[in-house]
Structures are given as C-alpha cells and as structure tokens.
C-alpha cells in the first residue's frame, strides 16, 4: 500500500525535523525539502496514469484539447509554486514565499489571457 509508505515517510521526517530543529535548524529545512520531493516522486507515476486516462476521455467526447491542456498547465503551476512557497515559509522566509506565489499568479494569468481574449471575441461576434 502506497499510502502507508508515504505517511510513514512523512511521520519519520517530521520527527527528525522536530528533533533537529533546536540543534541544527538548517538540516531540518533540508529534510523537509527532500521529503516533499520524495513524496512527489512516489506519487508522480500514479498522477501520469490518471492524466493519461483523462486525456483519452477528453479525446473521446470531442472537447477541445486546448482547454484541457490549459487547465492542466494551470494546476501544475499552482502546485509547483505552492510547493516552493510552502518550503520557503517553513524556513521563515515569508517574503520569498510571497514572491514565488506572485510569479505563479502571473504565469497563470499569461495562460489565461488567450482564453479571455477568445471569450471576448466570441461575445463581440455574437452581437448583431
């Protein structure tokens, strides 16, 4: 069972970080970063299979693929920036964390602008 592995890893890492926090705070941060990455790697193979199934599904029902890929990209950006920001915040660097989030927001906006413009054009064309 994958979930036991992940939870066990998480609990061990948490105990280690708590023990080390007072003596070596720099190592505790590194442990939390590495744990996050390991959990992500463990889960990424499952995620790819889920995404593949969703892609297949969307092809079958004739939904425009642009929407799907855009949404996936946006979710990915949100996740990655959240991951980075969370680590920075744990290390006590709130300023850097908010900058990471800001960058993520801007990238999401860049992806959203074409959709926004397309919608706008559509509405303009619909007007008599």
């Amino acid at each position, binding site marked *: 069972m994958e979930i036991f592995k992940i939870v066990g890893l998480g609990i061990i890492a948490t105990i280690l970080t708590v023990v080390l926090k007072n003596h070596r705070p720099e190592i505790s941060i590194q442990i939390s970063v590495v744990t996050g990455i390991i959990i992500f790697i463990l889960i990424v193979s499952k995620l790819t299979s889920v995404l593949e199934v*969703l892609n297949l599904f969307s092809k079958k029902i004739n939904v425009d693929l642009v*929407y799907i890929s855009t949404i996936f990209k946006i979710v990915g950006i949100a996740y990655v920036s959240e991951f980075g920001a969370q680590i920075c915040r744990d290390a006590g660097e709130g300023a850097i964390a908010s900058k990471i989030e800001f960058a993520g927001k801007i990238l999401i906006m860049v992806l959203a*602008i074409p959709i926004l*413009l397309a919608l706008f054009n559509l509405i303009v064309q619909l007007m008599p």
Partner: protein
Amino acid sequence: MGMIAFMRSWILNIVTVIIFIQFLELLLPNSHMKKYINMVIGLLVMLVIINPMLALVKGDVCIEEEIFKTSSAIDKKTLSFDIDQFEGIQEKQMIALYKEKIKKHVKQQIEYNNKVDVLSVQCEIEESKDSKTFGNIKYLDIKLSGFVNDQTADKDIEPVSNIVIQINKGQKQENTNKKNDENKPMIKQIKENLSSFYELDIENICVNMHK
C-alpha cells in the same frame, strides 16, 4: 435531426467540462491560488457554453485557432524581448572572449619566436557590429620584459665570469648597451610579424621593452 445532434454534442460538452472541473477541484492546492484558478475555469465554462451558439448563428468558427493565435503572439513578444536582452550580454561576452584569445595568441607567438617574456598585451578591436571591419584589431600595445628567457639561458655561464666583470664595470655597461641595440631589430621584427599576421598597420602596434 441535425438539431438533436447539435444539442447532444453541446450538452455533452458542457457536462464533460463540468465533471472534469469538479475532478480537478479535488486536485487543487488549497491556497491563494484557488481564486485565480477558479477565474480561469469560469472563463472556460463560459466559452464552452457560448461556443456552439456562435456555430449556430455564424457558421463554423474555430475558437481553438484563436486561442492558439493569441498565445503564440504572447510567446513571440516575450521571446523577442528575451532575445534583445540576451543579444547585448552575449555580444559583450563574445567580444571579451575574442580579445582574451587574441591576447593569448599574440603572447604565445612572441614568446615562441623571440625568447622574451610578454608582461602584458592590450588590444582594441572594432566592436560595432554594423561596421565592415567588425572584429579587426585596431591597436595593440605589448609590454615585454627584457630578454628574460635569454638571460636564464646565459645564467649558467655568467656566474663564472661574474667575478671577473665586477672589477671592470665599463664592460658590463657596454654589454647592456649592446643588448639594447640588439632589442631594436627584434622589436621591429615582432611588429612586422604581427602586422602581417593580423593585417594591421605597423604604426598601430606599440611594443615596449622593460628592463
């Protein structure tokens, strides 16, 4: 019949997108990002709902193409901006590297041919890209240290005769004078070599000998 097929595909589209979005909402991280993502998702749902209406009113319009066009236009703009920025930096690095190579080459050439140590080489090159002679050397300034290599070769002999010469100082001065005279044809030769090799005017090469 066409109407029913149309309705069928429209409703299917809407339902699929909404199920899909509900599924994705589970995956979303619960953070400040959520409202931005929700906005984009809302836009998408609107597009999916309105899109077939346009097909009904105006015939076939490809929304996908329009989205692609806008995104490619954005990409193009950022790319051209990046290229402008990179080109400046890259050019400077390239010119610096080129100068460094010229210096190294000049140093090696002189040291190989003439048995002297080259202390420093300064060079100026044509740096404006528009000019036809881009990359040509404009000026070379070379500082040599006098006959170091040659002296080390002589040193094996000199300690023997050193004691003898110390008594007769005039002879030593004569010796150094002789060396200075020897240097002049060598400097001239260095200049000629460099000017023929780099196609550079001989007046633009400056060679100094440090004693």
